[in-house]
């Protein structure tokens, strides 16, 4: 495998290999020397066309722990502002000898285009409303670490599914790994064609909760929508927000996830976000191990 563009690129065996490798690499994080010589002499470029704190820093930390040279390229203040095309930027990176390009782009499909122009590996770090495969991997890793398995888990993904690349990648990967996904959202926030996805859908969060092992709350992406998808923030929070009374409807062992950044008080109540059931900070820590595993498996051997 040369690129990681979509959760669909991962077979069950490959995805499990990534999760197992991440598990071994997580031990490095606990060591005094948090560095491995594995990717010495390799160059990883972080190409971020959209603002992102945690994904960019996570990839940067992962590449640095494997001793790769990291170039972080934010579009703000770059020649892209002068009108340089994605292809010309790609050719520049190629000329600089980038072995891997981690790309975040507002347009769905941009990483696929980039993969056609570059000799090295392309890793999709989020493209528009399309996919975010490493987020799905770190979510799967977190579920497996907390609950011990993925096959047969009942996962509810709640909220703005329409605009969520996290939801798309998670549905694909979790289906591959044998979990059952239910998408819970108001009808206006479910994409056209959702019936073809390997997931069930529901408009009623309270009905889904008692039978869920995992509840993954999605951020309401106000920057991607007008106000017309639901009547008001208050109404959305009342019907689809995860608050303490709703959490009490969950089974004892169930966990609460959120890919961040959160709108506290909207899709998730602050006391839920900070409760022991919440895996939000673990997800961030696991993200570094999972991205190390992806970089190792894409770049660690013969390309």
């Amino acid at each position: 495998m040369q690129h990681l563009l979509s959760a669909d690129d991962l077979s069950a065996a490959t995805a499990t290999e990534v999760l197992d490798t991440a598990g071994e690499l997580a031990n490095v994080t606990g060591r005094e020397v948090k560095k491995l010589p594995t990717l010495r002499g390799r160059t990883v470029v972080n190409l971020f066309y959209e603002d992102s704190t945690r994904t960019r820093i996570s990839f940067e930390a992962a590449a640095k722990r494997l001793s790769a040279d990291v170039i972080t390229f934010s579009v703000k203040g770059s020649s892209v502002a002068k009108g340089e095309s994605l292809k010309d930027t790609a050719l520049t990176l190629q000329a600089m000898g980038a072995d891997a390009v981690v790309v975040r782009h507002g347009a769905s499909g941009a990483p696929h285009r980039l993969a056609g122009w570059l000799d090295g590996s392309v890793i999709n770090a989020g493209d528009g409303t399309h996919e975010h495969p490493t987020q799905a991997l770190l979510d799967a890793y977190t579920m497996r670490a907390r609950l011990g398995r993925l096959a047969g888990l009942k996962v509810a993904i709640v909220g703005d599914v329409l605009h969520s690349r996290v939801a798309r990648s998670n549905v694909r990967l979790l289906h591959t790994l044998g979990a059952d996904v239910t998408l819970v959202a108001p009808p206006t926030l479910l994409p056209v064609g959702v019936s073809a996805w390997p997931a069930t859908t529901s408009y009623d969060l309270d009905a889904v909760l008692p039978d869920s092992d995992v509840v993954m709350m999605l951020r309401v992406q106000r920057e991607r929508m007008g106000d017309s998808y639901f009547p008001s923030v208050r109404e959305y929070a009342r019907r689809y927000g995860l608050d303490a009374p709703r959490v009490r409807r969950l089974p004892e062992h169930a966990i609460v996830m959120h890919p961040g950044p959160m709108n506290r008080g909207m899709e998730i109540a602050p006391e839920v976000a900070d409760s022991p059931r919440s895996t939000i900070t673990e997800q961030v820590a696991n993200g570094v191990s999972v991205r190390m595993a992806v970089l190792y498996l894409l770049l660690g051997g013969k390309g």
Partner: protein
Amino acid sequence: MATSKAAQTTSKTAQTPSEGAPTTPKTILSGADLQRVIDRIAHQILEKTEGALDTVLLGIPTRGAPLARRIAQRIHAFEQVEVPVGVLDVTLYRDDLRSQAPRALGPTELPADGIDGRRVVLVDDVLFRGRTVRAALDALRDVGRPALVQLAVLVDRGHRELPIRADYVGKNLPTALAEQVRVSLAETDGVDAVTIQREG
């Protein structure tokens, strides 16, 4: 991304053109021989480390790990000394990563008391070019600072590419580069044996 665990350390094969047809595997050590060799290594470690106090055995996956556990068991049987055993995966420290498909990672488990100031005996199945041991020395440096590092191997087949020599050798086995030495252990392969075979 496809890797297989089996391909990881079992076959320490030369990558030179082979001469002649492949041969059937010839047994070098039977199960009983292997047991005697492990006993001898255990005795030698006891002798050379003055009773194996302050000593830690670190096995290199895959087959070094069960070998290290067996040596520790024999040391305990002979002298009632508990020698801590750990596992040190060296995959991420190899210098030949770029020449083949990515390898699956093995576990790294250090004894609870760590390795700082201890006498560490690295344990592996076959000593060949010396690259694995070099990687192990690098890996050790990242997990602690032993007082002393020694090397125990079941089979030394020669063809070193680095100035590395084992302190404890179960069997010196002169080989041609085209030959393949295979160590099988009950824990990983269901049977104890060391065989040699010319590659096809």
